[in-house]
């Protein structure tokens, strides 16, 4: 009898748990997203409903409503649940909005969109134009034009071209998304050490006598000397390579540093755009284009023994470890690389040494939007606009005034604990804990505060001078009376030793979307190339390289890639004609 009772209870329990497990995910999420108790969840729900009616009343007057409400925010750099940090507190104080984080990434955002469960407001993490268009046509994104007009004046002021792009190109006459990372050229304030390119170990370059270079072949020769020297300095026997790469960012190492060092920028659909002429060229089909020249450069490096074959098997973190441990001597991004610089004469273009004009920002990528699930669209727009103000932008990038930064002798600068962490060279954990930079894509980034200093206080000249590494200072001093590498690059441009690109033409940023079929073929082509790039980079001879290249091109053509590429080229022509109407 006892056995029977136990087994019956057990089976009933199993059934029960199953039913609970199959219950509404939304309901569970609501409870968890408050403070973990169901009572709190219900209380909040009641409070939310009450606030909704208050908001509706106050919104009609257009005033900034600060009554307490909760919004769900889809971002990737914080954990699920109520956002509990200094920046969130400050936002709550300034706007009355408590933010509940829904941690999203590229794939999760698609799942949420497929289920109609988008958070109140969110960023679109590297979603393609095709996906964004689908979400728009499904009616899940809120039209923003009226809200922008009433509550988003700072956004309209800061990124007019980007909004125009969003309205005309993405939303077909309606604004649904707000592009991020809009930039304005700042030729008077060079970046500390550029952004992307071929950053090479300066200490080794100096050790081999700082040989002069004229072009990339000589650069490869210098890299060989640097590599030999670095290898001779190692006592642990570990193999050193001048160049390497990683595999988990697709073909990034081949699409960015080399074309950017020749005045190109990357576009959608496997295209590169010439920043000077505004012309576009397909990476794969343009046989004499800059992309294939770049692949040839890497192949040459491989055949000279300069390219690390593990560059085609390792992940980004392994690459970073090698850079940090001196096993790879050239980095393509300045971050995590305090002792590398752009060498003179290696390439004609010194890419990204200033912030440049990027009127449409990252376009669809990483843009912001409000979903139709949002019960408080006015408040959501007020929040977005607050983050776009000088005050909000300073908060996003620097933390709380008086705690993380403040005016010292009239100059805004990092202070206290944050300064200590910045001085130590690793403020990532501290910043994450405080919420600093977590919302970096929730403002355009072009604010020019009245105090005359950059929004991001680590971009002030003083900060850059004080925080250049000893190696960077040595490089700057060796090339003039300078304090950080950016000043040297700036001087090279002024002296005509190098050129830079300070504007990405609007025509390259407003290219309309291709048909869905073409976009799928383009994605397929990209995946196909990624799967075959080792055949090109690791080719043992010119003939093998050429054969691998031709095989890739003919296979791509066989899958209809040429037509898909032509569609993009046609759209680029239209964009060029219409660009004038976008210029402000």
């Amino acid at each position, binding site marked *: 009898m006892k056995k029977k009772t136990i087994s019956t209870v057990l089976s009933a329990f199993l059934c029960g748990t199953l039913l609970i497990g199959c219950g509404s995910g939304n309901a569970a999420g609501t409870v968890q997203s408050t403070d973990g108790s169901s009572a709190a969840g219900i209380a909040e729900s009641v409070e939310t409903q009450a606030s909704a009616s208050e908001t509706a009343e106050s919104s009609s007057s257009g005033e900034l409503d600060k009554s307490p409400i909760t919004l769900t925010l889809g971002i990737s750099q914080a954990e699920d649940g109520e956002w509990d940090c200094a920046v969130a507190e400050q936002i709550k104080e300034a706007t009355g909005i408590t933010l509940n984080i829904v941690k999203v990434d590229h794939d999760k955002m698609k799942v949420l969109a497929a289920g109609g469960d988008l958070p109140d407001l969110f960023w679109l993490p590297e979603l393609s134009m095709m996906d964004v268009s689908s979400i728009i046509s*499904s009616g899940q994104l809120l039209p923003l034009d009226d809200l922008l007009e009433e509550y988003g004046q700072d956004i309209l002021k800061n990124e007019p071209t980007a909004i125009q792009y969003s309205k005309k190109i993405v939303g077909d006459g309606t604004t649904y998304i707000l592009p991020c990372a809009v930039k304005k050229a700042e030729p008077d304030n060079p970046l500390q050490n550029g952004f992307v390119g071929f950053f090479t170990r300066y200490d080794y370059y100096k050790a081999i006598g700082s040989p002069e270079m004229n072009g990339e072949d000589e650069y490869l020769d210098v890299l060989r000397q640097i590599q030999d020297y670095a290898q001779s300095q190692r006592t642990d*026997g570990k193999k050193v390579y001048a160049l390497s790469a990683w595999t988990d960012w697709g073909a990034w190492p081949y699409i960015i540093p080399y074309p950017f060092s020749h005045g190109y920028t990357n576009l959608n659909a496997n295209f590169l755009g010439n920043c000077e002429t505004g012309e576009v060229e397909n990476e794969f089909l343009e046989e004499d284009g800059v992309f294939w020249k770049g692949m040839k450069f890497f192949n040459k490096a491989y055949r000279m023994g300069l390219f690390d074959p593990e560059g085609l098997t390792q992940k980004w973190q392994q690459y970073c470890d090698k850079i940090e441990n001196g096993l790879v001597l050239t980095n393509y991004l300045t971050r995590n690389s305090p002792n590398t610089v752009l060498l003179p004469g290696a390439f004609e273009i010194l890419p990204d040494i200033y912030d440049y004009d990027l009127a449409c920002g990252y376009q669809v990528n990483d843009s912001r939007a409000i979903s139709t699930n949002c019960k408080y669209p006015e408040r959501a727009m007020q929040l977005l606009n607050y983050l776009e103000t000088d005050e909000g932008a300073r908060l996003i990038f620097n933390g709380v005034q008086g705690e993380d930064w403040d005016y010292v002798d009239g100059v805004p600068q990092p202070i206290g604990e944050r300064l200590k962490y910045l001085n130590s060279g690793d403020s990532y954990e501290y910043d994450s804990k405080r919420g600093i930079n977590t919302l970096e894509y929730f403002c355009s980034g072009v604010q020019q505060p009245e105090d005359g200093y950059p929004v991001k206080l680590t971009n002030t000249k003083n900060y850059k001078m004080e925080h250049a590494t000893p190696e960077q200072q040595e490089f700057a001093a060796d090339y003039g009376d300078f304090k950080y590498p950016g000043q040297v690059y700036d001087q090279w441009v002024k002296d005509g030793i190098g050129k830079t690109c300070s504007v990405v033409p609007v025509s390259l940023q407003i290219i309309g979307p291709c048909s869905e079929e073409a976009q799928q073929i383009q994605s397929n082509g990209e995946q196909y190339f990624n799967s*075959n790039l080792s055949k090109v980079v690791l080719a043992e001879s010119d003939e093998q390289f050429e054969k691998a290249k031709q095989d890739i091109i003919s296979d791509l053509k066989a899958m209809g890639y040429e037509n898909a590429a032509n569609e993009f080229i046609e759209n680029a022509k239209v964009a060029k004609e219409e660009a004038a109407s976008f210029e402000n």
Partner: protein
Amino acid sequence: MQEYSVMDEGIVPSKWNARTRRGLKYLLIALPFMVLAAAFYYVPLFSWAYAFFKYQLGHPITDMPFVGLANFRKLLAQWQEVARVLRNTLAMSFLNILCTPLPMIFAIMLNEVHHARYKKFIQTATTLPNFISWFIVYELASAIFSSGGLIAVIQGRFGNVQTGTDILGNNDIVWIFQLLLGIWKGLGWQAIIYLAAISGIDQELYDAARVDGADKMRTIMHVTVPGLMPTFMVLLLLQVSNLLNNGLDQYFVFYNPSVADKIEVLDYYVYKIGILVNDYSYSIVLGMFKTLISVLLLFSVNGISKKVRGESIV
């Protein structure tokens, strides 16, 4: 004397009631698992409907344009690529099938070890890798074979430059390498079922073999192996029916451009087409294609088994 109870429609034996109650109890116990099986194996089959539509993110299926067999025609148009992926899938599956006896051999060997502590240590050490995720296995492989790994350190000890091995990027041995990783990870775990089967073999058979003068090897060959054959055949059949199910995790973490040509199996390809290329509908067609072949294989092998051994599992 038989007991009777009065039911609505007459007099029925109380024995029947007990059976009903017992059946109900078993049904209740089985019900959650039946629901789970239905939820995870049959409900997803509804997504096959998307194969006939042009998938649009965020739209209900009723709003998506009906495209008929267009996505199936894509399968034919891209047959060359699908054939390459099928080649990889079948190659790795056949290599796995060739290695099917290994867990059985390992279990027999382990069963013959009489030092209890040593036996437990071996069994634990070989079972544990099964619980390690493929991501950790990748990290381990990287820590052993890369230029900063164990082999490179050993090279260094002999005064050589530490280059490591290019095994993670060697397209020529990728099938064998992945097979060995799979064996290392699953051998101990797969042997458990054989160890259980060995313990179920009648001890009198061993005694009789010993009385007949059989040595250890003969006992194994004539008692243990025949005793394990039914289990082996069932597992073999299941493995054959899973011929196209290589899984995603292993190939996802070990995928890189150097080995892409040979490591892309059907499961990875479905992921690639669906998530990376954004062609969901076509990825569903690929999934359907895979299921269809798997079902055909299962019934074929089941039929062969029925003819050859007189037994079937389905």
